[in-house]
């Protein structure tokens, strides 16, 4: 089993409110979270409450924060191939086609060239883009670009995968199918997944726990355990009750 527990200890983050200015904007305030190996965490919260910022810290892209982030008990040091992400904006390289963009994730992987090619193809099929393997990012739609980004995030099988609203731009059908695929991969590979989403239904459907954040400054408002057997049934009364519970939190916030 992968030993990929993640601990967030008293994470606080401030930004200079304007470049060069000394007044600071507190974006994250004392975030505490213990994430078990192979756990699926959903994070929901109003826009601007620091969800993307938190993911960047876990990823190691931004090292200026207070508190500690421990991976398997050791503080993280910059980025690492064991932590992957699907960014909120797809961030594909415009000069590479779909296949090459997915392969970017394997640039420094120990796989052989053939293994790389095969697994890249498999993941492109997984997101349903086998007919667009040679297309460039400007030739595909926003939702398709987001799917390429999902394939790129999955292809090197990180042990912790951060997902920043990865399914936001998709139609309902593709969205439901990819939720299923994410869940399959998560169940099979025991990857720790942290999913940021605005879709409460999705958060409850996928998460072992749902973390509700609130803004100004961004902090954890509540953590709900989703104790439902998988695969979950959206019309199950307990599912609906949990979903409404999370939604009522939002109603209070607004």
């Amino acid at each position: 089993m992968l030993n990929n527990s993640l601990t967030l200890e008293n994470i606080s983050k401030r930004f200079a409110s304007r470049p060069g200015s000394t007044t600071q904007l507190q974006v994250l305030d004392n975030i505490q979270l213990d994430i078990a190996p192979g756990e699926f965490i959903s994070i929901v919260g109003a826009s601007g409450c620091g969800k993307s910022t938190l993911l960047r810290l876990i990823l190691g892209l931004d090292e200026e924060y207070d508190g500690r982030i421990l991976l398997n008990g050791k503080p993280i040091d910059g980025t690492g191939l064991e932590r992957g992400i699907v960014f909120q904006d797809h961030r594909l390289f415009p000069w590479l086609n779909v296949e090459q963009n997915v392969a970017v994730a394997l640039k420094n992987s120990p796989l052989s060239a053939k293994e790389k090619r095969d697994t890249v193809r498999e993941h492109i099929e997984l997101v349903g883009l086998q007919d667009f393997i040679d297309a460039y990012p400007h030739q595909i739609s926003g939702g398709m670009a987001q799917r390429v980004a999902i394939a790129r995030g999955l292809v090197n099988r990180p042990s912790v995968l951060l997902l920043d609203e990865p399914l936001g731009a998709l139609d309902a059908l593709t969205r439901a199918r990819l939720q299923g695929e994410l869940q399959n991969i998560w169940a099979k590979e025991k990857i720790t997944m942290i999913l940021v989403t605005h879709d409460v239904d999705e958060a409850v459907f996928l998460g072992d726990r749902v973390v509700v954040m609130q803004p100004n400054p961004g902090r954890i408002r509540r953590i709900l355990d989703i104790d439902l057997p998988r695969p979950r049934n959206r019309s199950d009364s307990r599912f609906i009750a949990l979903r409404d519970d999370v939604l009522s939190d939002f109603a209070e916030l607004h």
Partner: protein
Amino acid sequence: MSSALAISHGSSRRYRGWVLPISAVALWWLASHMGWSQSGLLVSPEKVAATAWDQIASGKFWRAISASLARNLSGFFIGTTLGLVLGCLLGLSHYFERLVGPSFNTFKQISLFAWIPLISVWFGLGDVAKVVFLSLAALVPVVVNTCDGLRNVPPNLLEVARVYRFSRWQTIVGVMLPAALPSIFTGLYLALVYSWLATIGAEYLLVSGEGIGNTLIDGSEHFMMDLVLFGMVVIGLVGWSLNALARIFERRMQRLYGIDPR
């Protein structure tokens, strides 16, 4: 109906560019034939055409144009090669930027033609001097645009490279250079245009040897306006062709990058 309109509209637009030059030639022809000007300084279009034919048939034209183009291309290649190296160093190394950046920024403020006296003292008036001058003309836009392109790589894409643990070298080759390519190409394009302008300038100011600029000088020294006009037409056509060639490459590049070609 509307598509037929669109087509006729499109083709009329295509020919619109010819209206002005054709009217100008017609007016010119009228002026020289109606005897509006008795001065020998206004020659007829036929005279220019005859001179053009004479230049081409006698081989003078070919010698002049090939001398000019050879100079233009050597200057372009030397200038852009040095420009790419310098631009990459400035764009990629903060140390080099601090060392050389301020000097280069001062250097590029000096008008190109202000170099002529210095160049003629150091290198004479021959081909070497001209190629040095041309290289300078090509160098500056390449350095500026290469360096700008490398500095302005979207930080989002650099973060992707960090996430996948690209080495410095992988980041340069796999992200920075491709992202900077459209800007680098703009530099090369400008270098091509400037170096042709500078070719004529160099031939005009560093007078010696053959070249299309020298054809112009010959014409004006001997009051042969037909020769002068012929030279001007050739310079314009070559400039236009170089421009068109560069445009084709630029379009292709932009299409690859998903930039709407204008």
